[in-house]
């Protein structure tokens, strides 16, 4: 049973053309996260939502935005993708904001920028 679903699995966009990545969850978790994982690198947290509260990491570029219209869905918007934004984007959820809460990851969306 899929718990964290990401669509699409592969996304190709052109340099500067806005793109939106989607994440949905069936776990009814309070927290949703977006990570960027470049090739052969560790995942890096971009931001997270605790319920409707948005929390941006200090070094996340302004080019990256996020929306969470309801508990189940969260979107990652890249306003003007550059070649350096090509990466795997991982969505994750957790029941709450405690380290004892397991983060559940989606399969990721691989973004290619041409």
């Amino acid at each position, binding site marked *: 049973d899929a718990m964290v679903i990401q669509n699409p699995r592969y996304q190709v966009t052109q340099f500067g053309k806005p793109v939106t990545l989607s994440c949905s969850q069936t776990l009814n978790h309070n927290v949703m996260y977006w990570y960027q994982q470049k090739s052969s690198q560790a*995942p890096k947290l971009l931001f997270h939502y605790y319920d409707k509260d948005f929390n941006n990491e200090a070094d996340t570029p302004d080019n990256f935005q996020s929306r969470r219209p309801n508990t189940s869905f969260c979107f990652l918007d890249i306003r003007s993708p550059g070649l350096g934004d090509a990466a795997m984007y991982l969505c994750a959820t*957790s029941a709450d904001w*405690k*380290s*004892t809460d397991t983060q559940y990851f989606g399969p990721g969306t691989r973004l290619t920028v041409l």
Partner: protein
Amino acid sequence: AQTVTQSQPEMSVQEAETVTLSCTYDTSESNYYLFWYKQPPSRQMILVIRQEAYKQQNATENRFSVNFQKAAKSFSLKISDSQLGDTAMYFCAFSQGAQKLVFGQGTRLTINP
């Protein structure tokens, strides 16, 4: 800032062997959490095992166990009786109180038949 270092970019062992993946971290805090995550090829990342720093006993989950050395800031993962399905990228991660995970660079583990 906390950092996590995995010094073995790649490892390869034969099926049924035991393998140990290394992880060191740097923090000035005394209470924190450590994790090992597994990311199989083209599949989602899943939690393998978690260790709470204030617990002296090493965590164990079936064939997976850790060797947590708090003074040395070392957190290694031992996989016993390795299986083909253990082939994956393994990430060591650190969290201090809240859920912000800091990941190491990963170790690509291949189990050969």
